[in-house]
């Protein structure tokens, strides 16, 4: 019984967060709900990157590009083929994201560490370049506007509140899957690869294949968040796919705590909330604030904010016993 109680207490923060997210539309105003939606979408993107960045130790710099491929697929299919059904758009977007990951992963996994980062950077910029150069199709740097809210074919149309719940449900499902993957034998094999690749090979693991599978799973969830983003914001621009976006997602993970899953969500929260308030004061100063924020986080919470919070919570639990 004691054991079960301890386990239950461990989940109190996640449960509280979940209740808060469910109740949010009746507590906060529309602007703030839109902010939370963005936090969840980018939080999911950052969490999916964390699977390969934090857990496996693959510094992928093309994550926003895969996100963008899914988003643009949805936007383009809507614009040129007038496909509205979510049940067509989402599988199409996901397939493209997975296909891109399969190709990018195959090319980039020949390299390790910094070289992996450079190759994924180049591949990501390839997508960015395509979104700008094929401006007749993609709308160039103006982006691809007017993507509607998803049409589920259930006879009701989406309001911003519905959209928020839709994002929340998909977010929860995705995080649940990511969480299970991370705690599975496969997930542990990824951490093992990060910590001692040679030992993993000596134990019988086909390291390359594990990395490749992880890269594709990560790309799949980047696709999920890309599709959500396209529907939510209604606009895909090249900036969503470039290296600045990939870098921002990486910063979210580093600030929040890499290899912790929840850290990525915290990072997303901090960056969007700060951006929201700082941009209200002065748009130009935002990059400076972001820089300072990054430096402070790295100086005072070297492993990120989540491990600090986790330790605090463990202390609280210890006090309660």
């Amino acid at each position, binding site marked *: 019984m004691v054991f079960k109680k301890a386990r239950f207490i461990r989940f109190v923060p996640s449960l509280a967060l979940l209740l808060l997210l469910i109740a949010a539309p009746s507590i906060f105003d529309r602007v703030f709900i839109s902010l939370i939606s963005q936090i969840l979408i980018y939080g999911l993107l950052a969490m999916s990157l964390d699977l390969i960045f934090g857990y496996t130790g693959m510094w992928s710099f093309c994550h926003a590009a895969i996100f963008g491929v899914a988003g643009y697929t949805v936007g383009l299919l809507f614009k040129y083929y007038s496909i509205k059904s979510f049940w067509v758009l989402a599988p199409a977007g996901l397939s493209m994201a997975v296909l891109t990951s399969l190709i990018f992963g195959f090319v980039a996994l020949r390299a390790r560490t910094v070289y992996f980062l450079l190759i994924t950077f180049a591949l990501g910029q390839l997508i960015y370049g395509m979104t700008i150069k094929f401006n007749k199709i993609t709308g160039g740097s103006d982006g691809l506007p007017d993507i509607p809210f998803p049409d589920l074919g259930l006879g009701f149309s989406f309001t911003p509140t519905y959209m928020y719940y839709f994002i929340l449900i998909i977010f929860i499902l995705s995080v649940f899957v990511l969480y*299970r993957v991370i705690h*599975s034998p*496969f997930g542990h094999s990824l951490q093992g690869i990060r*910590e001692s690749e040679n030992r993993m090979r000596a134990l019988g693991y086909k390291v390359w294949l594990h990395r490749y*599978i992880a890269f594709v799973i990560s790309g799949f969830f980047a696709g999920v968040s890309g599709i959500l983003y396209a529907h939510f914001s209604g606009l895909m621009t090249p900036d969503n796919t470039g290296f600045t976006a990939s870098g921002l997602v990486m910063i979210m993970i580093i600030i929040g705590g890499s290899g912790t899953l929840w850290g990525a969500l915290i990072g997303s929260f901090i960056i969007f909330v700060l951006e929201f308030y700082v941009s209200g004061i002065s748009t130009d100063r935002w990059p400076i604030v972001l820089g300072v924020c990054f430096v402070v986080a790295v100086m005072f919470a070297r492993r990120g904010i989540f491990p600090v919070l986790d330790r605090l919570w463990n202390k609280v639990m210890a006090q309660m016993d």
Partner: protein
Amino acid sequence: MRPTKPSNVPAGFSIGVLLNVTGDAIVVILEVEKVAKNYGGLKVLMDISFRLKSGEKVALIGPNGAGKTTLFNVLSGFVPLSSGKIRFLGREITHLPPETRASLGLARSFQISSLFPQMTVLNNVLLAIHGVQPTRYHMFRSITAYEDDLTRARELLQLVDLWNKRDSLISALGHGEQRQMEIILSLASQPKLLLLDEPSAGLTSDESDKLIEMIHGLVADTTVLLTAHDTDLVFTLAERVMVLYYGEIIAQGTPEEIQNDPRVREIYLGSE
């Protein structure tokens, strides 16, 4: 397999079975044939040939730089060899990668502990157990939810008194405990051949004695090839000793024979 007379056995022993004097079948687990390794002009291993029989405990000794670790890396597949052949359980493995050799039943430990420092003791062992099973690709069940594997992990950890520390991170263990874990991880897959590279590296003589005792108990049925500086380890565990000196095996025999071999005394044990 139909018993074969010794005289019929071809020179290459490719069938993997020999008969000893009394006519019992002896399985040759590992057969190393003229293995050489050069780094450019530097000849680290020169035409090394030996066989390991099932259940045998063999020690490989030699001064620093003799090529012991290189030989281990060649046998486990981490370093490609320059020429020669390696057969494991009758199957040629000369060019197979380490992970394939591992799934065939060839395990190794590392001279410098190569564990997963940010993972718990239990998860380290579980990861090692899953390594040669299809479950290594399972993605939806928790790693601790596999009952059989958990039981095996528990047995292994109880052998070295680390079950109570199963939730500690490896990085929190002492050096001696990490050396024990190093061996536990290599044993977890129930290998047919175990290569132990300096299992007692960096241990005090007390810790080393404990480790020897532990290895003794653990590997009764396993074929073991080990390298060591520690003469205690060699002479308690090994039934046969091979002396590697500048890339060549210059002597082999029982521990007593090796101790009394004048060449070995001169170059390895030193002429005190």
